[in-house]
């Protein structure tokens, strides 16, 4: 089976662990996303995959062949960074063609490949220009084209859209998974943004402080995080959370006297509950709901949605709701939580499945 396998990889620098016991498998034909905040170890992991850094212990293999000691030059990889990296003195055409020329392809074949990839990335009109004459988005397309044309076994993308304009990011996010889907390469894409990860879809690996905390199909991991840390890592705006007690089928939030019907399947006891911003509601839902008094800290309005930051039960929460709701700071409001929307975490932080 063609796949990249990491086996108990640990990287230490000056005795400080950068990666700790990372085991994972990345398949071709799937868009693999690495999600975590800065310093989670994403770039270090990509560098180990590329052979730019050697693991302190552990091994990695591609196609079942051990890669651990193989130098970068001998590996079939393409790496795209956050900064646009192109050869400034070469034309866009020659930039894209360079990996094929190095590999020694026939001229006619090279030009056919370059033209096909340029077409896919909408940079055909720029083939004769120099990279620095292009906009940032176009420069990054050139770097992506060079990665695509190479048909490397392993394509590593380290926040490649972070320096681009918002709208360009939106377009490329939709295009990238399709572009790489047909290549047969193992593709790994690192990002700090949960929303970007959701848009890219595919298979996600969540990272935190040098460890993998969960992996799986992206929408599944989003809806079924294994623990509080995974839920926090995969929430933007940040996950709202608060302590709760379950007793005789009733759920009560810490600090409130009034409870409501709890989802079935949860044993009596103390929990930490988590719910995402769009599940903190300004209107009472039809079913059972917890009503919480809150004080508005700030309201941010995007035109289509309102982000309402509130202080409630000694926590700072965010509600994300459709429409324009210009609450004033300091205003008292009642917000609602449907227990059916909540994630429940036990004292050990692990998620407990409700039925």
């Amino acid at each position: 089976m063609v796949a990249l396998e990491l086996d108990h990889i640990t990287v230490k620098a000056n005795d400080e662990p950068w990666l700790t016991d990372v085991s994972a498998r990345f398949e071709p034909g799937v868009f693999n996303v690495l999600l975590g905040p800065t310093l989670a170890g994403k770039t270090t992991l990509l560098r180990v995959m590329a052979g730019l850094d050697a693991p302190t212990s552990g091994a990695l293999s591609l196609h079942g062949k051990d890669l651990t000691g193989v130098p970068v030059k001998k590996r079939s990889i393409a790496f795209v960074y956050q900064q646009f990296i192109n050869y400034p003195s070469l034309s866009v055409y020659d930039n894209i063609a360079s990996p094929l020329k190095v590999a020694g392809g026939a001229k006619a074949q090279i030009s056919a490949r370059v033209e096909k990839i340029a077409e896919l990335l909408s940079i055909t009109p720029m083939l004769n220009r120099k990279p620095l004459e292009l906009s940032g988005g176009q420069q990054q397309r050139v770097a992506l084209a060079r990665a695509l044309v190479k048909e490397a076994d392993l394509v590593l993308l380290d926040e490649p859209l972070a320096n681009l304009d918002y709208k360009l990011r939106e377009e490329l996010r939709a295009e990238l998974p399709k572009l790489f889907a047909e290549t047969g390469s193992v593709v790994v894409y690192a990002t700090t943004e949960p929303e970007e990860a959701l848009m890219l879809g595919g298979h996600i690996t969540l990272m935190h402080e040098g460890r993998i905390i969960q992996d799986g199909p992206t929408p599944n991991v989003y809806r079924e995080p294994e623990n509080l840390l995974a839920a926090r890592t995969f929430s933007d705006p940040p996950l709202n959370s608060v302590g709760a007690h379950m007793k005789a089928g009733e759920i009560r939030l810490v600090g409130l006297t009034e409870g409501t019907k709890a989802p079935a399947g949860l044993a009596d006891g103390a929990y930490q509950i988590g719910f995402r911003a769009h599940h903190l509601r300004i209107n009472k839902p039809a079913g059972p709901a917890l009503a919480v008094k809150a004080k508005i800290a700030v309201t941010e309005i995007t035109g289509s949605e309102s982000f309402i930051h509130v202080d409630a039960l000694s926590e700072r929460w965010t509600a994300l709701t459709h429409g324009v709701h210009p609450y004033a700071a300091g205003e008292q409001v009642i917000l609602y939580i449907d227990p059916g929307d909540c994630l429940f975490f036990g004292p050990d932080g692990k998620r407990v499945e409700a039925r």
Partner: protein
Amino acid sequence: MAEIHLKNIAHSYTATPTTPEDYALKALDHVWEDGGAYALLGPSGCGKTTLLNIISGLLTPSKGQVLFGDEDVTTRDTAHRNIAQVFQFPVIYDTMTVRGNLEFPLKNRGLNQTAIDARVEEIAAMLGLTERLQERASNLSADAKQIISLGRGLVRSDVNAILFDEPLTVIDPHKKWELRSKLKELHRQFGFTMVYVTHDQTEALTFADKVVVMYEGEVVQIGTPEELFETPAHTFVGYFIGSPGMNILRATVEGRTATIGKSKIPLSIDYGILGSSGIEIGIRPEFLKLTEGDMATVNAVEDLGRHKIVRLTFEGHNIAALLPECENVPTGSVGLAFDPARTLVYADSHLTKGAN
């Protein structure tokens, strides 16, 4: 503090501009109200940095005047405009402590130490820096340094305006939320005039009372976030604001009906007969409902958690519709319901109200 009046300004980087294309910033007359929170939003190359540099004094415009209150500051340099600036990357003194950095702009203005201490502590508390005031700045992470840069920008209470140029680029997404709401709180408390340049629509819309949307050197709309979302004055605003942007479709319009291919779309007002060229209708993905029928074909569905984006083909156009989290997505052929009140008509890219 003072209102800022950009009076009939325009700017060209060429010495002898002849055509409108020679202008990086086309003719503009605008008053930035005292105490307003403004965002300058647009893609790279739209002229927003040129505009910011004209306000800050880094550039003298080729035409027009810059007025702070009643004073003409057009030819004055940055140091003599009494403004604070925060840039994309941290600008701080590594050899000083956090306190030293925050004090610096106040010491320069000759404030007494009691006033300085009070102000520094107030700002530090607001930005969560109280515990770190004695630390040396060189030991801090990049985003902590940027927070200090923000503090340095905010510490003086006598500035005419604070200008921000993409200040949150180097900050982690989780931290961005916090800092954006902090800036908003600070604006409410101190009432500074703030101008915030960004290409990020979420940042612009959540920060500002008024957003100035720029496109190819021109201001195409100035409005509240709600106005930009609900009634974009230009198709570019429709496309640029909103994610995904507005669906813009070439059409013919007669009376209360728009025709696209074989499909008839009802409109809420009578437009009379609009010329056949350059007419488009615009509808946001939020206002397009999927129904039973065979007007369009579903190509793909993207699950974004709180909602789903459905990508469709309709009369040869690629369009998008937004569905709530829990709604099921039909596959194959679907019907489309355009909300007539939300279906807008554009003539040569500009919003038109038609005959009535």
